[in-house]
């Protein structure tokens, strides 16, 4: 499992970073989304992988077998913030497209 998660993080980071460096605004916004997934998974992985140990204090649950709740709460915050970032970037992207007439990140027609 660890290897699968690591590969997943690796691929999401690679595709995210590659898109982040592209010249079209939509590529960048998709890249940011993918990079966010990667980072969230990475943070969760820092709490190690635990199967069947959701940190819920139900009767008879053993906190010793819980997944670490701290990275989880950090990721929850991260999800919210990246959602706001995506929304803001989307609106800026649309406004820039309307104002400059191009979807290049620098607002000009250079192609790559």
């Amino acid at each position, binding site marked *: 499992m660890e290897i699968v998660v690591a590969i*997943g993080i690796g691929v999401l*980071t690679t595709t995210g970073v590659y898109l982040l460096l592209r010249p079209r605004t939509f590529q960048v916004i998709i890249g940011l*989304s993918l990079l966010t997934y990667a980072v969230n998974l990475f943070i969760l992985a820092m709490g190690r992988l635990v199967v069947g140990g959701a940190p819920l204090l139900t009767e008879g649950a053993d906190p010793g077998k819980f997944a670490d709740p701290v990275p989880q709460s950090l990721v929850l915050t991260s999800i919210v913030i990246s959602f706001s970032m995506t929304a803001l970037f989307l609106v800026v992207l649309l406004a820039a*497209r309307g104002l400059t007439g191009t979807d290049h990140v620098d607002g000009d027609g250079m192609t790559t």
Partner: protein
Amino acid sequence: MTAAASYLPVLALLPFVVGMLVMFLPRHARNGAAALAGGTALAGVLITALLYPKVTDGAVLRQTWSWLPDIGLELTWRLDGLSWLFTLLVTGIGALVVLYARYYMAAEDPVPRFFSYLLAFMGSMLGLVLSGNLIQLLFFWELTSLLSFLLIGYWHHNENARDGARMALTVTGLGGFLLLVGVLIVGHVVGSFDIDAVIASRDVLMASPLVTPAILCLLAGAFAKSAQFPLHFWLPHAMAAPTPVSAYLHSATMVKAGIYLMMRLWPLMAGNDTWYYVVSLAGLVTFLLGGIAAAFQYDLKGILAYSTISHLGLITLLLGLSTPAAAVAAIFHTLNHATFKASLFMAAGVIDHETGTRDIRRLSGLLRHMPYTGTLAIVAAGAMGGVPLLNGFISKEMFLTETLAFHTGSLLDRLLPLIATLGSAFSVLYSVRFIHQVFFGPEATDLPRKPHEPVSWMRLPIELLVLICLVVGIIPNLSVGPLLRTAVVAVLGPEAPRFHLELWHGFTPAFMLSLVAMALGAGLYFALYRRLANREARDRPWAGRVRARRIFDGIMDGLFAGAGFITRLAGTVRLQPQLFLVVLAAVAAGAAPFAYHALTQAGAGLTLGNRPLTPISVPFVVVWAFGIASAAGAAILAKFHRLAALILTGGAGLAVCLTFVWLSAPDLAVTQLLVEIVTTVLLLLGLRWLPARVASKEDLERAKAAVVVRRGRDLVLALLAGGGMAALALAAMTRPPTGGIAQFFNANALEGGGGRNVVNVILVDFRGFDTMGEITVLAIVALTVFALLRRFRPAREVVGSTRQQRRQDAYDEARADREVGDTARDYLFVPRVVMHLLFPMITLLAIHLFMRGHDEPGGGFAAGVAMAIAFIIQYMARGTRWVEERLRVLPLIWIGLGLLLAAATGLGAWFFGRPFLTSAHGHVHVPLLGELSLASATLFDLGVFSLVIGATVIMLIALAHQSIRSARSGHSAEELEGATSAPGPERTPKLGGEAGGD
């Protein structure tokens, strides 16, 4: 003693408070603003007068407030004889300037702003002289620079005002910086910033090798502020300020701040060789050059400005001489100069106001038209020139006496009487010129206005100041003697020399020099008269092309050019290289420790740990095979196939979401899934406004070599970043957990937070403050999105109907039995009904998620997003117009309520004497529902819920609303407001008022 001392901070801070109030007065409230400002200044005078008995005979009032005790900083308010004298000057002349300004400022000027700045300046100046701590003094020092910038630039439509303000700020700001360095050196050497402690440590400082740099830095600050050569050039340009400002700042108070500092530090530094040479020489040069320059100015305020520079030089010179008697003369002349110069500036302002010009070559014979003001100005100018029976005469004679006294026997010392007499002669020259050319001579012929006397209230400040000049000049010992004595003792200590102020000392050498200076000055004036009255003459005959202004501008241009060059050389405005460098730096920073480790300890780089791996599961591998393929597909298609890329991104997100479920993070899975939905809807709405990118011929042809190289380079970096992240994650995951703080949260969640869902308890309780910040960010983003969309101009290609709509409409038009819009209305009819019916169910789900959040996966955030989805589904099902006709969502209110509720819950803890956001909880039994856990954190979570609904909904519907907006372009902004703001009569103007863009 302490009761009196507690007035000191009041004295300094009251003007700031009143200044704030004045700022909010309506634009034309001249009388109200002036009354408040004048009342504050008079209150200051009164407090100062009442405090006088507390500071006589070297007594000191102190009030200390703890500020940053950990690093030994205190706010100390301190009043002694010297600062008392300056306090009186600042408040007294301040009150007169306020009265004068009330009549000077035009009705169309935004006067409350003026008085507000003036009051804040008064407060800064008072804070400066009342500071008992050098850091605190520096703080107020910088404030005076900033406010002087605002006051000089008050008429900001005038280019000269802007330039003058900028120059003053640059020079005094630079001086302030050097002063800071000097203060830090002194504090480092002495070990304290307290003024009393510093002055008591003179021997320590003098023995230190840092004494010379400390003195030079402190003096640079003082010289910049008090316009001493070579930092004098900003003062004449500051004359672009309104005349009351010139009268207040640039004659009586701000320029005296540097003088005050030198007097304050006089006991610390006087007598040191560096001090003696630097201060005396700077003072001497300034005194002489200022006098000469003043003689040739033809702007009334220019004459006064250079004369101020010259007189400040005189005071500086006296301080540099380092003898107690010279210090007495310096303090005395400071007082006298403030009175006669402030009155002269005011008189110049009156002349400007009533004739429309300040050009001395156009003015003539004004005494006929304004006999009263003219007489006052003549007396004040007499004081400036040092005429007997006026205050300027007495201090100037003290000055000449000091120059004659033997100090060090150096060449400078021997030449001093000669140069002093020459400087005084120029002082006489420009005073005579001021009197003769303005008030005597033939009637002026080409004045812009017909001159007449000003209103009597405008003259009153001048009358009072001139009266002081006369009283001090005739009975000095009775009037000003005791005050001067008090100030002198504060500087020189109890062994200060006894002095006796007298009008007539007999035929002393100093009196002879005074007579010589007067004769010389008058003689020079009449010798140069033809030149001085000539309208074609330049204002600075000998300076030629060497002008401080030119040098200053050259330096500034050079700085800007240099900065621009470096920016062009090392910076870029392009996003791609910037991001490339950011990622590269991140990768390098991540790799550096491992590389270092591998180099220093052979073999110990990035290795796997020994924690047993979790058994692999085939479905999980399948999920990730799917996720990886989706991510790769999204990366490839994002350029030309946006919809496909968006869907594939969702696929990758789903893989992440399933991973959360698998790996015991149900909260994350729920939230991720809901956010995934909202993000996708949002991007879909956005795609409507993003014209499709069709692969052009060039795109399809073989890409250029440079492009291939760039893509290859980016791919290599991306692979490095991805490989690094994977390796790092694997290395961490294969090692046993380090413990951390998880145990604490698991152990305390139920007892301390009253919840079973540890993650939720962390979010709304243990780390509630973070969540508070997070929802605030969300609210700000939502408002920003809303604001950006209000003025949204979509790309031209996508305005109007979409291709699908056009096709549907064309189909309707082609058939006789259908009306245009029928197809669109019935499109996807069944799913629409289903979606319509989903509203109550999703609402129920949201409530459920919220209610169980504290104990089971869910919580306010997930619930809020779910609720927002319920709304946006209605938009999708029935169209924007249909929903907005029936549903008023009021997201702004949701946002505001949510933020308020969260903050109020946090503040509620204060009422129980606990820190912000401390929680309380309990369980109550509710019929039918059973045991319910109630925690104050639930209220907080309710705030989160409300805010998230509002923020998410406003983003979604603001974007969804665009489809109506661009269809009908006229009243779009109001409509958007209608959809999002409160109902009622105030609805339309409430959110901004201006009619919408297009």
